[in-house]
């Protein structure tokens, strides 16, 4: 099961989530040098909030703010759940 949301436009990010045997988070951000930890925390907190484990999350970030990252992840999760 897999879900994708967002875009590669500036200030946005493209996030994919799929079921996996463990939780992995891969972040590729144009502002990673400055905000990697913050992006990672946003992803981890959202997964915890959603009670989601054992997923592979891939983020391609073009300078999105945290609420954008969270929103895209939430939609990707919804889409993953619909992807049967």
């Amino acid at each position, binding site marked *: 099961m897999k879900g994708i*949301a967002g875009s590669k436009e500036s200030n*946005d990010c493209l996030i994919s989530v799929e079921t996996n045997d463990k939780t992995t988070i891969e972040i590729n951000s144009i502002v990673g040098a400055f905000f990697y930890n913050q992006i990672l925390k946003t992803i981890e907190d959202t997964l915890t909030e959603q009670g989601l484990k054992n997923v592979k999350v891939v983020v391609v970030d073009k300078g999105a*703010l945290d*609420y*954008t990252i969270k*929103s*895209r992840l939430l939609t990707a999760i919804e889409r993953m759940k619909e992807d049967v």
Partner: protein
Amino acid sequence: MFRSLLFIPGNNPSMLQNADVFSADAIIFDLEDAISISEKNNARNLVRNYLINSSVLPKQIILRVNAIDSEWFYKDIELLKTNKIDYLLIPKMDKLTSDKLTVLLSEYEAKNNMPETKVIALVETARGVEELPLYAENKRLIGLFIGAEDLANDLEIKRTESSEEIFYARSRIVYQSVINHLIPIDTPYTNINNPEGLLRDSTYAMSLGMKAKASIHPNQLDTINKVFSPSPEEIKWAQEIIKINLSKPGHGVFQYQGKMIDKPIINRAEKIIEKAKIFEIL
């Protein structure tokens, strides 16, 4: 109160994060026409998290929700729980929609222990225009907004630069707004590369009695604000009238520059000053 409203597509992070910077009196976050069916949830998630988390927000926030009989409407109004939304903009308003809306929102508010939600009606069908007298009294309403593109589709006519084809609808909205103390809001001017056309269209709408105009690009806002603000001459006139009135307590009727000034004119002067203060011109 507003002069200018700016549509921002709910799915555009770049626009969202600068929504507070634009010189619109109100921002309309759009979940309806600007969002394709597959992106409805994505846009709603983004607007919700933006409203909850952003440290900077516009002065007044309007949410354009999807039609009340669509599958998305109930999810859209969930955003009221952010407590950040001032008004809902309801598409395709007519008598039936107005009645249903009252029921739906009242139930929703009661269930969630929320105050009464204020709404702006998007008048964009022939029925919506003709049934105005039947729903304009809805106490939730604060404004009537003419949606000329959809109205033209409904009428199977073309939109033109002179906008003669919407004269009737514009006027009807203005009259119904005045009767019911609502803000008549004009349709956006859609050619963003024609500033002269925007000025002409705005000035004309204002002359018909429109009090505000929506826009689809931030670069249209300065023109709209200028047209729908009281002019320096008007403000000066109003200040004079109020000054004279205050100096003659009890009279209520006097002459100014050869013209009779009575209560309705004094009221008008007070409205101009109030507007000027709200829009930070004074």
